[in-house]
């Protein structure tokens, strides 16, 4: 594999493992990843983000009033987009099995409730989830690459990734090296993503930017492009271990990035906000942003996910309220 950080003699593209063959990239993007200097220039040349304008637009979209049939449709869509997550040191096979069961049948009392998109667990818990989900279409996402800090050597990250995939993961959620990113070492970040992507093969790769550690929206935009250029199938906001986790404006920047990527390449990449999205009202605000920033086509679990745990139960309660005509309570939805 050629890498951006390789010797100056080998500055040919490093895109062998990305979703899009380098040949299909427009010339300026091929140019962007020719070597580390080019990448740095490209990322630095991205238009800045004005925080106030961004947050204002996000807040404006958040005032959309979603009622009645469109609310029910939004709830069902949101449920189908959930990556039902448990990422705790205290996770046990029992916990993961019950989570997986919930993913399959989120609301056993209410037939017709959609199942979630995936469960999301640590690599050593993947096999446990796989047992329960065998035969279903529900994905098994595993965090990898020394999650959540990413502070380890590449071979260990690769081994972590292989463990997840060999255990049955259908999606890998990697973390970028934020230290390298903040040090301006974009080539290292890029190469790691490329390496992990290669290890993933056909398994879809989510690139966690950990936006809460990036400090600025400008950095979120740069990291988004870095993740896209390096071949990430998803760009994902957060590990859930750092505050702030997902926010609407941050997700807005990332949705804009995949929209811009599509406009330049014709290829649709996915976005996953994770952490901090706890109720239906919030989820619907995200869906509005998906629709109006990225576009209708992204209203699809293939292209948008929620990384969440408690969100699902609120969606289920709201779904009951919509279908049954009265508010539900926490005692009526399962705790898993």
């Amino acid at each position: 594999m050629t890498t951006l950080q390789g010797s100056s003699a080998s500055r040919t593209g490093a895109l062998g493992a990305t979703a899009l063959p380098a040949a299909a990239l427009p010339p300026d993007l091929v140019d962007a990843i020719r070597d580390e200097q080019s990448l740095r220039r490209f990322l630095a040349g991205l238009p800045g983000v004005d925080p106030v304008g961004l947050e204002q637009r996000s807040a404006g979209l958040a005032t959309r009033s979603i009622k009645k049939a469109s609310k029910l449709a939004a709830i069902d869509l949101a449920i189908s987009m959930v990556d039902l997550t448990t990422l705790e040191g205290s996770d046990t096979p029992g916990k993961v099995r019950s989570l997986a069961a919930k993913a399959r049948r989120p609301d056993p009392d209410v037939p017709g409730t959609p199942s979630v998109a995936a469960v999301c667990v640590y690599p050593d818990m993947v096999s446990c989830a796989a047992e329960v989900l065998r035969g279903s279409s529900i994905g098994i996402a595993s965090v990898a690459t020394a999650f959540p800090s990413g502070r380890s050597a590449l071979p260990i990250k690769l081994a972590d990734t292989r463990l997840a995939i060999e255990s049955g993961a259908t999606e890998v959620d990697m973390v970028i090296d934020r230290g390298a990113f903040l040090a301006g070492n974009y080539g290292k970040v890029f190469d790691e993503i490329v390496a992990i992507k290669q290890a993933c093969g056909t398994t879809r790769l989510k690139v966690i930017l950990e936006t809460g550690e990036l400090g600025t929206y400008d950095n979120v935009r740069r990291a988004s492009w870095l993740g896209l250029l390096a071949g990430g199938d998803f760009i994902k906001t957060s590990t859930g271990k750092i505050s702030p986790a997902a926010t609407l404006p941050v997700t807005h920047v990332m949705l804009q990035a995949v929209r811009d990527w599509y406009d330049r390449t014709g290829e649709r990449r996915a976005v996953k906000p994770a952490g901090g999205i706890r109720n239906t009202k919030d989820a619907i605000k995200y869906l509005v942003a998906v629709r109006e920033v990225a576009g209708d086509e992204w209203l699809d679990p293939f292209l948008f996910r929620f990384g969440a745990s408690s969100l699902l139960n609120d969606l289920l309660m709201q779904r009951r309220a919509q279908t049954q005509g009265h508010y539900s309570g926490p005692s009526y939805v399962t705790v898993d």
Partner: protein
Amino acid sequence: MTRKKAEPVDDTAPARVPVAKTYKLYVGGAFPRSESGRTYQVTTDDGTFAANAAQGSRKDGRDAVVAARKAHGGWASATAYNRGQVIYRIAEMMEGRRDQFIELVRTGEGVAEDRAASSVDAAIDRVVHYAGWTDKIVAVFGGMNPVAGPYFCITSPEPTGVVAAVAPQDDSLLGLVSVILPIITSGNTAVVVASHARPLPAIALAEVLATSDLPGGVVNLLTGDAAEIMPHLASHGDVNALDLTGCDEELGTSLAQAASGTVKRVYRPRAGQDFADAPGTGRLRAFLEQKTVWHPTGAVSLSGGSAY
């Protein structure tokens, strides 16, 4: 107008024939004749011939506007400190010509020597007063606006542009200075029609200005009849404001009317102002525009900014 002959003092000694003065306009830092070639006789208050003055025309007014516009950019963008120094220098030079000004005011207005002297002193002091305003205007009339949102918002005064003014007809130096200085202090440039009957202090002032550090074109002094010159300036598309202090009621109204065609700012104080009174800020403010500039302040960090 009849030329009153000066009485010969001594029949036997040959009298020195004084050099009759014919003055010109002051436009763009130069002293051109009126393009019309016309002059008119100026007499002292008792009717004695004093000088010939140029009778400015419509075209002279137009040339003066061109000069004032040309000078505006540099004068408006000069530092306030620099404008203050330039204006203070005017006062210094007026002080040097104090006796001449007193003589012109005394004979032109027909007032006693001490009255003329106090008027000239007040005029010089008024220039000093405005020299000190240049670097206070923005602080005094502008300021930060504490808007209810994440914005840096500031309102700051700027000069309006080119101001055409009619100087007071009676108070020929103090009144003139009291009109000109608040216009130029903030960075405007001026086209001023001097008192028709008493233009000589204005002409002397032009000589002061021409040899001072004031850039040419910042003040343009026309002599002649305001009723002839001003209508063209009132409707002129490159004049931003009018000061009608020296107009009579009828002329003032017709000029104010003409000014509406281009929505000019019009300053028209009530008649009978005593220029010896301490100046307020009304005249200064009359030729200022307030510009409000907004910019987002924004969150410096993601955690600080958003509540979503």
